[in-house]
Structures are given as C-alpha cells and as structure tokens.
C-alpha cells in the first residue's frame, strides 16, 4: 500500500492506525464508563469489599471491550 504523503510530510495516519486508535480510545472511554456504572450496579446488588473490586473490574473490562469494538468499527467504516 502506498503511503499517503501530503505536501507537509506524512501527516495522514493510515486506515489500520485509525482503527487501532479508535479501539484504544473506545477502550479508555468504556473503562471509565464501566468504572462509574459498574460501581453503582455492584453496590446495588450488595457487593462489598473484595467482591466489589472484582465486580467493578469485570464490568470495566466488559464495557471497555464492547466500546472499543464499536469505536473501532466506527473508525473503520469512515476511512
């Protein structure tokens, strides 16, 4: 694949880089959102202490993965 070289050097990231960047961004957003909403929902079902940490971590990873996948797709269909 030829590298897109503009008049100011290589400033355009290519498609796979954009998809990767979208995944990282979505993963970060999803982790943050999962930390908030996961804390609420785990407190609501009555988890405390060590169990709470595990529950929140699981929710964070799940929502990070979901968000990252969707964000990567959203980046991928636009380039």
């Amino acid at each position, binding site marked *: 694949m030829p590298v*897109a070289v503009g008049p100011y050097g290589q400033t355009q990231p290519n498609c796979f880089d954009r998809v990767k*960047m979208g995944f990282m961004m979505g993963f970060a957003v999803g982790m943050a959102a999962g930390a908030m909403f996961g804390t609420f929902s785990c407190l609501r079902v009555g988890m405390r202490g060590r169990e709470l940490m595990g529950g929140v971590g699981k929710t964070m990873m799940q929502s990070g993965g979901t968000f990252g996948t969707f964000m990567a797709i959203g980046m991928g269909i636009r380039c």
Partner: protein
Amino acid sequence: MEEYAREPCPWRIVDDCGGAFTMGAIGGGIFQAVKGFRNSPAGLNHRLRGSLTAVRTRAPQLGGSFAVWGGLFSTIDCGLVKIRGKEDPWNSITSGAMTGAILAARNGPVAMMGSAAMGGILLALIEGAGILLTRFASSQFPTGPKFAEEPTPMPTPSFGDYRQYQ
C-alpha cells in the same frame, strides 16, 4: 478527531444516522455471532445455524436502535448549533443527555433522568477523550515539513491524487 471534520449541519443527520446503523449492524453481527454460537446445542452444524439465526434477528435490531440514537442525537446537535450559534463539546453533551431522555420518555420520569444522565456522561467521556487525543496527536506528530532533510526529491508532485489512498 472526527468531531472537527464533520459534515455541515443538515447533512450531518443523514450521515450520522447511516454511520450509526452500519456500526450497530456490524458490531451486533460480531457479538451476536459469538453469542449465538455459544448458546446453541452441541454440534458444529447446530452452532453455526444458531449463530446465523442470532445474527439475522438481532443485528438489524441493534443497528436500528443505534440509528435512532445517532439520528436523534445529531438532530438535537444541529438544533443546538443553530440556537446557540457556536459549536463546542457542550452541544454534544447536552444533546446526548436529551437524546437519552427523549428515548426513555415512555418509561416515566425516573427512567428519563437515569437515561439522560447516562447519555450525558457517556458523551462527556467521549468528548473528553477526543479533546485529549487531538491534543496528544498534535504534540506527537508535528506538522512541519518532515522530509526537508531527505535528499531524494519527490518524483511527481502528488497534490491531486494523494487523497484517494485513504
């Protein structure tokens, strides 16, 4: 990043609606394929068939709800741009919250509040990540002439066609 290079306003609604449908359909296809594969009875044939059924029934639904969200979101966004006369992250956050509230309107005011808070927080996170990303990217990739010290001249001035590769 794409927040600052988007379509002009009335057409953004169509663009976001279609983009959201595609995103939801593809993502829903991936997730439902895995889910249908795991939820089916044993045997590869059954599993593939269950996977296909799950994708066929669920992926367009998810795409449709994504499309409703995206279309309503950018409708409100455009309205806010028109009313306030400027375009900043608060528009997105407000329209995310309002979209959540409107789409949960049939479930009562408590559900509306919860859904609005969720939409607003999500959009605030996304906007914040976008701002951080543009700041980080602009500091990491300086847009100066990078190949000034390279001795090889460009064979052809590629002004006209460098955009077709992306």
